[in-house]
């Protein structure tokens, strides 16, 4: 809707092929078995598949174990402040439509301290790929209750068990106006994880992916239980949804047809306490995009700018 003037900064086509290793930097410092490793691999694979120019790719995160993510990507990265990944990513994208911007955030980062920005980020619907690493606990600060911790979770701030029903990130996101893409996956099924992140990247808008993460360090039982529980998982199936591969389909035998344009059905699924649904809950390709607004008057020359200022100055002449 906002005519996009993009000629100031031509998208340059990759001259060289980037193997997956081109996106890898250092050794990831997460605990062994931490779900974050899986997502890192999936994302590196996606970058290679899409041949994203590393210099045109930016990972923005907050603070937390998960938010260390950008340090392990050999792209540009912004490891900012706790809870504030969204505004930074929006600022990056606003006048740089040529950049591929990913947001990596944790359940505390996004749903607790970052909740206000989260809500507004959904509404802005800028073209960002958002990965919520939901391990249901504060990892980095060593086991405090997270808003997504199941009630009764024993943590250092609630040694007798947490006392509030958890925030449901999918449900909350679906409740915000201008929502455009909501999906759920888990770190321990690589192919589904990959398919989901890829679909999110391909969506033009704010693609919100909640990834159920294992934190073997502080939620060991929970991590084990989640991985083993296959009966309470259902795959969301639809031609416009995320296409699980055969192995995923074999792993999870419960499938449910769900049309990702049906927001009411999506909500009902999101709120089903007995089941975890994997796949695309909702997509609206028509939702208004604020990044298009941000980019609509890019690339003016100094002369054009000066002429405009000059015109405006005249109104202040005496």
């Amino acid at each position: 809707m906002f005519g996009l003037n993009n000629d100031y900064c031509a998208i340059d086509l990759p001259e060289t092929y980037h193997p997956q290793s081109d996106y890898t930097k250092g050794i990831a410092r997460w605990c062994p078995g931490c779900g974050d490793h899986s997502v890192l691999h999936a994302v590196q694979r996606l970058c290679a598949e899409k041949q994203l120019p590393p210099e045109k790719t930016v990972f923005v995160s907050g603070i937390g174990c998960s938010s260390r993510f950008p340090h392990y990507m050999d792209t540009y990265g912004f490891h900012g402040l706790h809870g504030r990944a969204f505004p930074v990513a929006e600022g990056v994208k606003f006048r740089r439509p040529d950049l591929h911007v990913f947001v990596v955030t944790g359940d505390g980062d996004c749903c607790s301290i970052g909740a206000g920005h989260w809500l507004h980020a959904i509404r802005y619907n800028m073209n960002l790929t958002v990965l919520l690493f939901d391990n249901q606990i504060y990892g980095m600060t060593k086991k405090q209750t997270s808003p997504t911790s199941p009630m009764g979770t024993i943590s250092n701030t609630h040694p007798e068990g947490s006392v509030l029903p958890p925030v449901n990130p999918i449900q909350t996101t679906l409740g915000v106006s201008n929502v455009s893409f909501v999906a759920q996956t888990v770190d321990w099924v690589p192919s589904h994880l990959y398919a989901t992140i890829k679909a999110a990247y391909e969506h033009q808008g704010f693609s919100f992916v909640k990834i159920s993460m294992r934190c073997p360090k502080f939620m060991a039982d929970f991590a084990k239980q989640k991985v083993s529980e296959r009966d309470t998982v259902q795959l969301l199936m639809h031609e416009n949804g995320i296409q699980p591969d055969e192995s995923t389909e074999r792993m999870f035998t419960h499938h449910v047809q769900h049309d990702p344009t049906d927001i009411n059905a999506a909500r009902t699924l999101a709120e089903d306490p007995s089941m975890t649904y994997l796949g695309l809950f909702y997509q609206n390709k028509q939702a208004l995009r604020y990044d298009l607004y941000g980019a609509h008057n890019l690339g003016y020359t100094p002369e054009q700018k000066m002429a405009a200022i000059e015109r405006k100055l005249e109104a202040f002449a005496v």
Partner: protein
Amino acid sequence: MENLTDTLVKPAPNKTGKQVISRHIVEIVADSGEGAQKAGTSFASMSAKMGNGVWTVEIIPSDIEPPPRTIQSTSGIRIRIGSKEITNAGDEADLVVAFNEVCPYSRIEQHAFKPGTKILIESAWAQHDDPTVKESYEKAIADFKNRGYVVYEIPMAEECLKLVPDPKRGKNMWVLGMLCYIYMRDLNIAEDQIRHTFRKKSQAVVDSNINLLHAGHAWAAENLDFQFEIPSIPSEKELVVMNGNEAFAFGAMAAGVEVCSMYPITPATSVSHMLAEAFEKAGGLVHQAEDEIAAIGFAIGSSYSGKTALTVTSGPGLALKTEFIGLSVMAEVPLLIIDVQRGGPSTGMPTKIEQGDLLAVLYGAAGDAPKIVIAPSTIEECFQFTIVARQIADAFRTPVFLLSDSNLATGVQPFVKPKLKAEWMAPPIDQSPWKEGVTPFAWDEETGLSKRPIPGQKGGEFTLTGLTHNTKGQVSYLPEVNQKSTEMRSRKIAAFSRTLKPPKVYGDEEGDLLLVGWGSTRGAIEEAVERARELGGKVSSVHLRFLSPFEPGLKDIFKRFKKVMTVEINYSDDPNAPLITEENRRYSQLAWILRARTLVDIDCFSNVHGQPLKPRNILERIKQELSELVN
């Protein structure tokens, strides 16, 4: 040392009682909606056009739409005009036009009048149907006289009614006509002004207002026994007239800034209003974020990606930005922050004047977070310093603060129309490949400076972090790395300080008393110093534009005076108050840091009245200090 008043009264040269004066202060006060401000700004513009110095400041009701004829509903304008440049709002008003008898009280509360102030007041209330109104009017007139004001009861509505059916709509132009007579303004220019003001209205409206103008003028010529002449030399140069917030907006555009990310807050918001109006065509956009944290985060994101951005705020918003300011220092992201200070602490007095954020800006963020802080002292400097600040931010890879206040934000002053220059503009984003082998924080050992890779630069890939990092940008908690990186960020400030020159002393280079000021108070301080010097006082002043780092040479300057005293609009303990001793007295903010910097025993003269400083009050304090220094 007697003559404290602004008015140089000369004997009336003719029967009309015409006096030639060098400066005068006019106020027009009315209920909001009666057009007092329109009359005032028209009068100010005309005066500027005729070559007078002008300073105007709006009188704004504290509530949005308070009931009429209450103190709270007073809306209006103060216009100070003079033969030479006018740099501040001055002392008490010389002449006041009041549309009713209640609104002067809102000004009396603020100590805006003095014995001898002429009050030209709408007399219609004397015949009002409601006896309580009548009574209120009569009591007020008696009270005004009692206070020594010179009251002129003027049948404004009655006279307007001869021309228009509803005097409420038009009285202001009649008043403008009256003022044109009193101050001998050129009626042709006045007509032009009306045509300009009502250019979007019908010809009938324009004509009607021009008629009212002439009627007001004629009535005054007929009925008033005084007239003032303020000699002027019309300027050769093209002038613009605007307030400090508008000047910031123009400065940002002229600097090539493309993103202003903000959250509304009085008195800073109007910077973004101005931008919102003009920015789109000048290749920029205002982002109204969900809160101040998001606003600065967004700005930092934009700066990081190559478009050094601006955020504007005031006290409470500044508080919320504290954490991101620390990140911007730590990760060396350039950023422009305009803080238009307001009365504090906390929500305080949002529409009032205070210079209370200096320490918060300098020291708000935890850890060692040095930054560059600049305070413009005139409206023109609001424009110019924004351009400079953008350049510094980019060159030194640092946040730069511009500290303003309501005095500049709402004060209006003409200045020479700037000639825009292409080199003021931020260059296009560098997308050339990053130089191999250069790290993202390749600090120059001596200056701490380094060049930053911008997303899109091949080979420059790095992860910015607020954690301690080495030259490669990698997280490290090694003692040496933290020491070194902290040192490098501090060194940039030292390097910048070496580019500064000592400030100029206003007045003699040595003497008895030196006043030190910063920000919006320059005009008032220098005017007071000038008056004191005319009276023979050995007083000078120095005005600091750079608060971090300081300009050099301060201690040398201070040492040439017997006493040094800052003049600020913020809080300091009265040394004579109960329980206050030299050991616990809390000083004004600039005084405090100058003491630490120079070890000179710097005193301070300050208040938190929320008002512009009156030159007269400063002058009185100068006199008191000088007499104590002599004794």
